[in-house]
């Protein structure tokens, strides 16, 4: 629009134009701000199966115990009560640790929670300075928690009968940076990956650094440290490199460079580590020397934060966009997929073996017709129930998705469904 046009169209004055423009721009700004949601912490804790209970975060900031057979809910924490609704855990990012009849996990609200595994009632909570995003570790009555405040806390469980001591009275080790990754406990040594690129090896009892151990990269370590074998410890993170270290000294044995950050932990099978990066590249790396084993990496359509999962002869990869792929672990070629989950996925897929009754129809549970070729022979009960192995995927927001790892088909009436509480 030319100046003259504006001025000749009756009452429109430059000042009026300015005001109208300002209002329009504010409107656009408000709209853009409203549309672009702030990335609230949802959590991506993978499921954990202990005995006959599946522990999974089915809503942001809520831990649930499910029956693995039909995925029905046994209990939910925080419960849907006045008291429970006051609690806001914000998000749960790591699988819980279960010890006897107690379940422990850290939450994004900065607390470590202990619940009764039978009914989900809260036993106590311990407050760290910042969010807890990595998995905890438990040994000899001590619970280890790494926090974003940079400290590794060693909490004596016996000291938390009802109330835990304040964090400054709990033995801790200050990494000087923040801790995002899960802890790895091997014998008496606890490995702590920090966001300043340092990997700490500490004595579990004294929290003193293990003598002779040292490792540091230039960028943060996001990936959970993984012990591939007795002599190889794998770490990785923001510098897009996967490092193989000597677990005793921290000496680098080899490193493998990917296309983007490594966040999801690798899947180790024999002498091969399968790993995906946040560019969606999936690699098979030889543990011996760090050479790529596939002719070329498999490329998913979106970032892959989830860890790969080897289910039988299929390597299952889940992208952030919810596209799921089945790969041949020998050469990285696609066997099936992508299967569209229709949800964003950041959590690790989980292999669940279960016996399915055909009477179960709700939620993501399979119907008899969905019994897959991967059904375990001889697992039928009375000619009605079917044994099968499914890949269970927790989507962002808590929906549960089940697929057949053999062909990527939905393992239930619905590929993904909300779990009714």
């Amino acid at each position, binding site marked *: 629009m030319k*100046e*003259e046009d*504006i*001025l*000749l169209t*009756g*009452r429109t*004055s*430059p*000042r*009026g*134009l*300015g*005001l109208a*423009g*300002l209002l329009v*721009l*504010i409107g*656009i*700004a*408000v709209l*853009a*701000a409203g549309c*672009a949601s*702030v*990335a*609230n*912490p*949802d959590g*991506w804790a993978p499921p954990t199966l202990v005995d006959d209970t599946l522990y999974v975060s089915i809503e942001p900031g809520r831990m649930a115990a499910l029956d693995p057979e039909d995925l029905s809910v046994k209990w939910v924490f925080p419960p849907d009560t006045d008291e429970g609704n006051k609690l806001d855990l914000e*998000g749960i*990012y790591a699988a819980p640790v279960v010890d006897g009849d107690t379940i422990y996990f850290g939450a*994004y609200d900065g607390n470590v929670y202990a619940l009764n595994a039978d009914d989900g009632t809260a036993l106590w909570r311990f407050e760290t300075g910042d969010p807890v*995003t990595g998995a905890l570790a438990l040994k000899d009555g001590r619970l280890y928690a790494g926090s974003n405040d940079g400290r590794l806390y060693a909490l004596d469980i016996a000291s938390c009968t009802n109330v835990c001591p304040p964090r400054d009275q709990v033995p801790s080790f200050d990494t000087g940076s*923040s801790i*995002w990754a899960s802890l790895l406990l091997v014998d008496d040594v606890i490995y702590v990956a920090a*966001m300043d*690129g340092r990997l700490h090896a500490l004595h579990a009892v004294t929290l003193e650094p293990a003598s002779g151990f040292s490792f540091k990269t*230039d*960028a*943060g370590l*996001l990936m959970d440290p993984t012990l591939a074998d007795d002599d190889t410890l794998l770490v990785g993170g*923001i*510098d*897009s490199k996967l490092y193989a270290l000597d677990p005793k000294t921290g000496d680098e044995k080899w490193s493998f460079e990917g296309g*983007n*950050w490594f*966040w999801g932990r690798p899947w180790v099978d024999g002498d091969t580590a399968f790993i995906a990066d*946040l560019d969606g590249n999936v690699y098979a790396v030889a543990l011996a020397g760090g050479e790529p084993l596939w002719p070329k990496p498999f490329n998913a359509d979106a*970032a892959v*934060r989830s860890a790969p999962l080897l289910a039988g002869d299929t390597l299952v990869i889940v992208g*952030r966009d919810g596209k799921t792929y089945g790969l041949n672990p020998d050469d990285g070629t696609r066997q099936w997929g992508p299967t569209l989950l229709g949800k964003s996925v*950041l959590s690790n897929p989980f292999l669940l073996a279960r016996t399915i009754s055909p009477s179960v129809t709700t939620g993501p549970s399979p119907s008899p017709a969905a019994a897959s070729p991967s059904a375990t022979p001889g697992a039928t009960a009375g000619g009605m129930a079917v044994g099968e192995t499914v890949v269970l995927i927790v989507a*962002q927001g808590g929906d549960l998705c089940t697929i057949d790892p053999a062909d990527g088909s939905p393992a239930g009436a619905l590929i993904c469904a909300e779990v009714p509480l």
Partner: protein
Amino acid sequence: MTRPAAPAAAAPAGRSVGNMVMLAIIGFIVLSFVILGPGRAWETLFLSPLINALVFLDLLVFGNFGLAIILFTLILRMATIPFTIRQLESTRAMQAAQPQMQELQKKYKDPKRRQEEMMKLYREHGINPLGCAMPMIIQMVVFIALYRALVFVVGGSPESLVGLSQRLYDIPLLQSAIPLDQHFLWLNLGEPDSTYILPLMVGVSTYVQQKMSMTPNANPQMQQQQQMMAWMMPMMLFFLTLNLPSGVGVYWVTSNVFSLFASYYVYGRRALSWRQILLPGPAPAANPESRPSRAELPSNTQADEQETAEPAPSESDAAAPPGRVRPAYGKRRGKRKNRR
């Protein structure tokens, strides 16, 4: 300190070069949006560079992300200072032309003719009706991009860090800065300020800045609109800041403070008078000192003068060129002095 508003005839050649550069930039952006598509173009041209610039500045200020935002705002405002100065000058020129505008409104009843005369007057005074829009557009684009950038950079959740990985350039120096410290003063830059202090600072600084740039307007309807905006804008930004990451509020306050200094540079000391800030509306437009000489009026205006019964301006009025006019709020003090 007060600088004269340059009439159109004396418009520097640099201004047309500036216009060309501005048009070239706009053309490039439009072309990119057409070729790449809106989403990718937005990411490539605005979001990713902004995110990486913020991370780089964070490194420069030793990991204090709040300072990085302030530094970023200052650099951006310095880079766009020609637009800002132009906007302020245009506003000031409009202030100077108010008496003549009033005169033209009284003189010409035919709207078309009146607009033609107005147009001539604008040209005479170097007023660009669209000149005010560019700094505003830049501000808003940066505001939206910064909001999105903050969601990723200090969004405060691991999910936002996954998003950041898709936008951070593959430069080891930048990667070493992740994750950024979210804390600055009492604020968590990735979350809204629940203490209301920052939203209040945004509201107050926006109000003051609005009042500084308000021009007296002959049209009462427009004046009413201006007054409404002087309240509406700060109120809206106050509520917006209540729900946005605090980093956006830090940007807004810094930007407003910069604007105040720019106003001071262009308008002089009087622009910061408390009277101007606290008065409900802009100062009255009538300013005899600011009237241009007849020779400076457009020829049509002179010709039509005969048709009207307007009293001729005094000698002293005619002597003052339009560019050397004090802003209306400055004039009041002058009058008081005369009374004394």
